[in-house]
């Protein structure tokens, strides 16, 4: 009997495959282009002058994505393309967080920084607005029909030797 073989299994990388590449073949294995925190910050700041970029960032913040997560994504992608090291990206991150807060404040967008305690998180106005967007107050609510409780049938004896009613 032929056994079905899952071909997806052999598409996965072999353990240790990443070590077979030549060292320095990835951008993050090369020396970073920007070496100081000042350079990293001045590289990211023009991003906030790009209107399309700012709109995208505002949409993400309005959707409820924490600012720290957005900043993490930005700095990670910078590291991946070999722009800066992880350390300098991490050191520059508070400035990016502050810049995003400023942009959100200027645009009256509710935001979550990501450092708030879970208990203190209140529902944001934007999410409430999004939920009530399609809500029509004139819409009549369907009447709730209460189901009558089912009459309980007398239990039949289940044993093998039990007498049955004829």
């Amino acid at each position, binding site marked *: 009997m032929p056994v079905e073989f899952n071909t997806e299994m052999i598409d996965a990388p072999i353990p240790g495959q990443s070590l077979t590449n030549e060292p320095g073949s990835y951008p993050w294995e090369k020396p970073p282009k920007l070496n100081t925190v000042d350079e990293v910050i001045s590289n990211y700041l023009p991003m906030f002058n790009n209107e399309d970029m700012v709109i995208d960032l505002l949409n993400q913040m309005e959707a409820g994505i924490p600012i720290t*997560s957005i900043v993490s994504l930005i700095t990670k992608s910078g590291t991946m393309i070999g722009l800066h090291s992880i350390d300098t990206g991490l050191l520059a991150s508070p400035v990016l967080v502050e810049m995003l807060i*400023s942009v959100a404040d200027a645009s009256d967008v509710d935001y979550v920084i990501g450092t708030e305690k879970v208990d203190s998180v209140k529902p944001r106005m934007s999410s409430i607005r999004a939920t009530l967007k399609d809500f029509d107050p004139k819409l009549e609510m369907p009447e709730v029909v209460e189901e009558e409780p089912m009459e309980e049938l007398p239990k039949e004896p289940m044993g093998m030797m039990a007498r049955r009613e004829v």
Partner: protein
Amino acid sequence: MSKEIKSMYRNMDKSLNKSPVAKESSSGLLSQKSKPVKEESSVAEYVKQIRKIRGESNARRI
């Protein structure tokens, strides 16, 4: 990495919200001019400046 960013931001926020402590200037013979500036302190300065500008613009809008 988001976790590290959170903790770093929290620590920076804490240190910036503390009341500033006046440092006494050293009367030593060694020159203080060539003292290297910590990168973290320059980031704190950036954050301070951004907060100041944001506070001003928010006050203007109100």
